[in-house]
């Protein structure tokens, strides 16, 4: 009885040991199944077709081309390999302007045939209408619909997830924004982080350290939404005034807030590494007549380099995944940033801001899960880097 009980407890403990692994697998599984669904979705909005006149021989259009047509940025078919004709985009909403209510019928029952004959009369017309509306056997051409391709998604530079007729899911601006703001955050945080770590581990007295440690812990403990609120109320207007920027919500505001948030991680990990630098090394250096400072930067810092590197990488991880503070201060403009003073949009902020509005199960919803997958793998990769750095360090020390 007793033995069985002990066995059972052992199994229970073993099982709970693997809970984190199971959670990781579940995260990958759920995010992937939702995210991968994006590539099964069609380019053109579900239930709709793009109908053309018989004389128009254009067969395929990319989502970006469709957007250009309906935004009236491209006005001639020959740019897409068609005949030399002016493009006349038509949306269902335009039906009210062209036909009277009586013509359309109370339940829009005549709309389909009216639109079909309209397209037949206008050779350059492209109509965005529900598939169910087009009468059977209508004498029309249709743009061939294909699935969304990974290339459009990962290399596309336009993020218009709700554009009609064809949403654009170019994730490059979001990825670039995330990396850009994190990079600058680390550049800001690094000098502070290293200095504080050195100061705490090498210079400060026990009392000063006893004061600084809780300060750093507190910085780590302040909720990100409080940082966001502070950034929105204080940092954004301040930057606008100091630098005379046209916009205060910028990558700069985001990276300053992120730098404060990533700082504790860098400090804690780097300080731990420096403190665990063997006493004998220090003493040897001091005995050779080196000053304390020379010992620090010739002996302590090089020997704890891997710990410092881990801290920096973990700090990057923290910055990349941060959501609320960034959402509140970066302005969220989905354009590839060319300077840090411009507004930009990050992956976490996009998920937080848009998931609420995306119809569940649709292409937009799935694209946000795909962003989640990307984010997950960025941080996964970062953690593997940390793991690699510290394992190499262990090997070196032993």
């Amino acid at each position: 009885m007793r033995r069985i009980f002990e066995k059972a407890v052992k199994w229970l403990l073993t099982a709970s040991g693997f809970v984190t692994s199971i959670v990781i697998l579940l995260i990958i599984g759920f995010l992937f199944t939702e995210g991968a669904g994006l590539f099964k979705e069609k380019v053109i909005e579900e239930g709709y077709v793009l109908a053309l006149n018989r004389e128009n021989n254009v067969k395929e259009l990319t989502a970006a081309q469709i957007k250009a047509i309906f935004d009236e940025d491209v006005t001639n078919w020959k740019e897409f390999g068609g005949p030399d004709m002016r493009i006349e985009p038509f949306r269902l909403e335009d039906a009210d302007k062209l036909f009277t209510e009586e013509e359309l019928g109370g339940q829009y029952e005549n709309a389909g045939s009216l639109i079909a004959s309209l397209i037949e009369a206008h050779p350059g017309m492209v109509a965005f209408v529900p598939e169910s509306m087009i009468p059977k056997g209508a004498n029309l051409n249709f743009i061939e619909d294909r699935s969304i391709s990974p290339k459009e998604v990962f290399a596309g530079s336009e993020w218009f997830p709700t554009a009609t007729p064809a949403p654009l899911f170019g994730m490059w601006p979001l990825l670039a924004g995330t990396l850009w703001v994190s990079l600058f955050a680390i550049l800001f945080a690094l000098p502070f982080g290293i200095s504080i770590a050195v100061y705490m581990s090498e210079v400060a007295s026990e009392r000063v350290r006893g004061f600084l440690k809780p300060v750093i812990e507190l910085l780590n403990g302040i909720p990100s939404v409080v940082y966001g609120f502070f950034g929105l109320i204080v940092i954004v207007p301040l930057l606008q005034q100091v630098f005379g920027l046209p916009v205060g919500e910028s990558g700069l505001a985001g990276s300053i807030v992120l730098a404060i948030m990533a700082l504790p991680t860098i400090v804690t990990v780097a300080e731990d590494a420096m403190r665990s630098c063997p006493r004998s090394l220090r003493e040897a250096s001091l005995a050779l007549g080196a000053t304390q400072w020379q010992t620090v930067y010739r002996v302590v810092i090089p020997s704890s380099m891997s710990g410092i590197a881990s801290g920096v990488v973990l700090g990057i991880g923290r910055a990349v995944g941060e959501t609320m503070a960034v959402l509140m201060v970066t302005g969220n403009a989905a354009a590839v940033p060319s300077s840090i003073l411009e507004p930009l949009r990050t992956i976490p902020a996009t998920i937080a801001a848009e998931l609420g509005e995306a119809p569940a199960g649709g292409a937009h919803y799935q694209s946000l899960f795909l962003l989640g997958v990307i984010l997950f793998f960025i941080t996964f990769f970062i953690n593997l880097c940390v793991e690699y750095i510290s394992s190499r360090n262990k090997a070196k020390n032993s």
Partner: protein
Amino acid sequence: MAIETFPKGYGARKRRSQKTAFGIFRGLSLFIVLVLFAILGFIIYRGAGVIDWTFLTEAPSDGMTSGGIFPAIIGTLLLMAGSAIVAFPVGIMSGIYMNEYASKSGWAVKFIRLMTNNLSGVPSIVFGLFGMALFVKYLGFGDSILAGSLTLGLLSLPLVIRTTEEALKDIPAGIREGSLALGASKLQTIWKVVLPMGMPRIITGLILSLGRVSGETAPILFTCAAYFFPQLPSSIFDQCMALPYHLYVISTSGTDIEAQQPIAYGTALVLIIIVLVINLLAGVLRKYFENRLKLK
């Protein structure tokens, strides 16, 4: 080996460069302390006047421009409790397994540690997505305290595991061997000897993980948080308001931003007070237990 001869004045230069370098370090450290105090000071200065008894005990009213944040405080406390119920048992058991059962150099420990570290690096918004997909949609809990607690629990799990593991690691092997030599079983040793000794540090870690949970917004955005729910939730399938989410909505939406701003400052201050109290509590407990151990 060449013997360097130092030019004259080298010693003074050495001292000067040390002075400058350490001065810079001291200055930058001081700067960060000032930044922290600026943030805290600003929020305390603007928020202190807002916080009074009604603010803490009443529901929001007049379109969120007056009244208090009572439901949000209760909601945050409920979520903290819920996440503790989810994460503490599993996390502590997992930590015990890692330190007491699994072989130190075996693949299991390495693998679990890798996975736990990875999980702790997963961004909170990804937990939000995952919680929404699994708990809200797949398991059909809907937006609820249950779904929010589970999501937050998973988020704090790595922290709980790590603190447990580290607390147990520092207990000398001799103590375990002593207990085993007296005829106690392995489980009895863990239950009666190892856990009680590790408890102080485990508890400190648990408290800090609660602090993290109290401030998270992204994971509850799509799993739990309600904009307005003046009554208190009556079951774990209800949604609830929560302080961080309340601060977010109140500082970005609402028809009368001007009238809502004091409430936003007040909410931010309450959040910060929770964090402060938790950090202080953890610090005090750590000191207390350390002293007690020393006395023993």
